[in-house]
């Protein structure tokens, strides 16, 4: 039982990291329907920016986090302006290919500039853990989970309850109609990217601290997993990304703990496919029949 609880904790904390990355992914998708393949790379940049800032200035967690988030949001907005904005009216697959190009560009540039070897991230958060009758939870795990939940709530609030959020959704439904209401579409989309990239940047710093290791390709696996997490929950749905992330984390942990660690990824895919077959729009997605 203790073992099971421990694995559950392991899974949830791993899942909260997937969720952290998936939040920004799914939000950007929800608004402009772009599978932003470069999202994982912005997350990686966030980690490197935090790394450089923290090691060069010796400053603590909060300034590092803020610097990484701001820089990433600027990078995100610039990428959007250069690479995605000209493609607003192109098919979505075209934009996807551009995102892949951006992803190659960021990865290879970082490899070139920062070197290919992994770096150790400075430890900016207090260590220590709680031991509840044998089940161990570290403070960092709790911290990340809390941050993820808060970000999810915050994001959901921004998108559903604020004026800018309404504008974001309006743009996603019908750009021209939104324009007719006086919405500045370009600004709204830039804001979306800024927000999504800032989240990715925050995730980069947090994960960097948590695992203490960053490298130029660190965005690849979590990028794909976050994408899968988003689809799991219903892509574009913010709480869905959280749910999907946690579900993947817990599945991986339980398969590793009780099945065979050899097949942990395969099992995740099998469950994903089963869920999609049963619920074609993801767990929280509404399966709307197209109105004819």
């Amino acid at each position, binding site marked *: 039982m203790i073992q099971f609880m421990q*694995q559950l904790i*392991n899974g949830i904390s*791993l899942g909260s990291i997937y969720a952290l990355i998936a939040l920004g992914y799914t939000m950007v998708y929800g608004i402009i329907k772009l599978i932003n393949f470069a999202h994982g790379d912005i997350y990686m940049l966030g980690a490197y920016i935090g790394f450089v800032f923290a090691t060069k200035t010796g400053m603590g967690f909060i300034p590092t986090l803020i610097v990484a988030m701001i820089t990433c949001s600027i990078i995100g907005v610039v990428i959007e302006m250069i690479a995605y904005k000209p493609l607003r009216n192109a098919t979505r697959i075209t934009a996807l290919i551009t995102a892949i190009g951006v992803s190659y560009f960021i990865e290879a540039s970082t490899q*070139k500039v920062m070197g290919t*070897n*992994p770096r150790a991230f400075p430890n900016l958060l207090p260590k220590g853990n709680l031991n509840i009758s044998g089940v161990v939870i570290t403070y960092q795990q709790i911290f990340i989970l809390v941050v993820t939940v808060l970000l999810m709530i915050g994001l959901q609030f921004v998108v559903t309850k604020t004026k800018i959020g309404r504008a974001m959704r309006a743009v996603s439904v019908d750009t021209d109609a939104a324009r007719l209401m006086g919405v500045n579409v370009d600004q709204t989309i830039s804001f979306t990217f800024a927000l999504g990239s800032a989240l990715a940047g925050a995730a980069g710093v947090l994960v960097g601290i948590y695992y203490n*290791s960053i490298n130029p390709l*660190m965005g690849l696996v979590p990028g794909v997993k976050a994408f899968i997490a988003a689809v799991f929950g219903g892509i574009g749905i913010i709480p869905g990304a959280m749910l999907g992330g946690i579900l993947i984390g817990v599945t991986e942990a339980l398969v*590793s703990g009780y099945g065979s660690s050899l097949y942990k*990824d395969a099992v995740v895919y099998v469950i994903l496919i089963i869920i999609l077959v049963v619920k074609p729009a993801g767990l929280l997605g509404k399966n709307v029949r197209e109105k004819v």
Partner: protein
Amino acid sequence: SPSTSSTGTTEQGETDTPAAEGQETYKIGLHYELTGAVADYGVAENKGSKLAIKLANEAAGYEKYVGVEYDNKSDSSEAVTIATTLASEGVIGVVGPATSGASAATYQISNDSQVIVVSPSATQNNITLVDPNNADSDVYEYIFRVCFEDSYQGAAMAQYATDTLAASKAVIYGDSASDYSKGLIEAFDTQFTKLGGEIVATEYYTAGDTDFSAVLTNINSMEFDVLYIAGYYNEAGLIIKQAKEMGIDKVILGADGFDSESLIELAGAENLNDVYYTTAYTAVDASEKLQAFIDAYKVEYNEEPAMFAALAFDATNLLIQAVEEVGSADAAALQAAVKGINFNGVTGDFTFDDTHTPIKSVLVVKLVDGVQSSADSVSPQ
């Protein structure tokens, strides 16, 4: 010129004195993974190779050796094209690629066009044979390597664990997608069992994973003496850190994939106690030759050399030594020289066996607070 900058195929030597009229020059292909998934290893080896060429040119007093660099993007079909290209460019030999898969893709081409390949780190079992799955098949005449085989290392570690560490129960943890890892696991498993030990469990991760807590939680609940991590430092560093933080205080064993400064950075020096790994390269009790390499490398690149760089340094020097012995670019003569070479490298002194694999002893390095404290020589029985 700063040597870390990319030079591409621009055939640039490391000294500023170009070859004068009548002075011989030799091209050496440097074929590495400079970008892509395993760029980390390729880039390190590329540095080692370039250093070797630079030093040789300094000794010669002119740009005698020219490194022709290519990047295969960690992709084995690119490697085929590059091998073909290199064969047509009149190189006397090729060093690289870093990984077994990409290397194997180039062997038939290079061998058929009589281009010597010295692989720094193609450790897969029997990879120098025409059919690696068949231990009886012929060896490629022109293919050599300066590293030992996965099975050799894995078995050596099993031997050491049983004999020296008196371990009787082991847990193995390796990369399910890596041939290197799987080769080590198989050899360790076989030898350890043969010596009367028991493999309690074999667990797997996938390269790129960062969270190992689920498997480690599982391992933590088992009875065992040693944990054998069959993989590279990227993941091993994190596994060790997470294991120690979880309270797993058993002896940890590894292979030459541990050999990198990054291991210490990632795992934290305080977690690197009771850690042993097999390697051919250690700075412990460094010979003069080795110390010279380490110093030169630090001057050149402002960082500690890792095993990959050392192996590539040796592989490149081996080719250079053969050229110096033969004094011409004649393929057959060079091949004979390489085959019969008696090489004193920074990763050990060796000659080649029938499969063109070095006969050199495996060292087991012990880490104390992240520092290499002793090195024992072992050979599996």
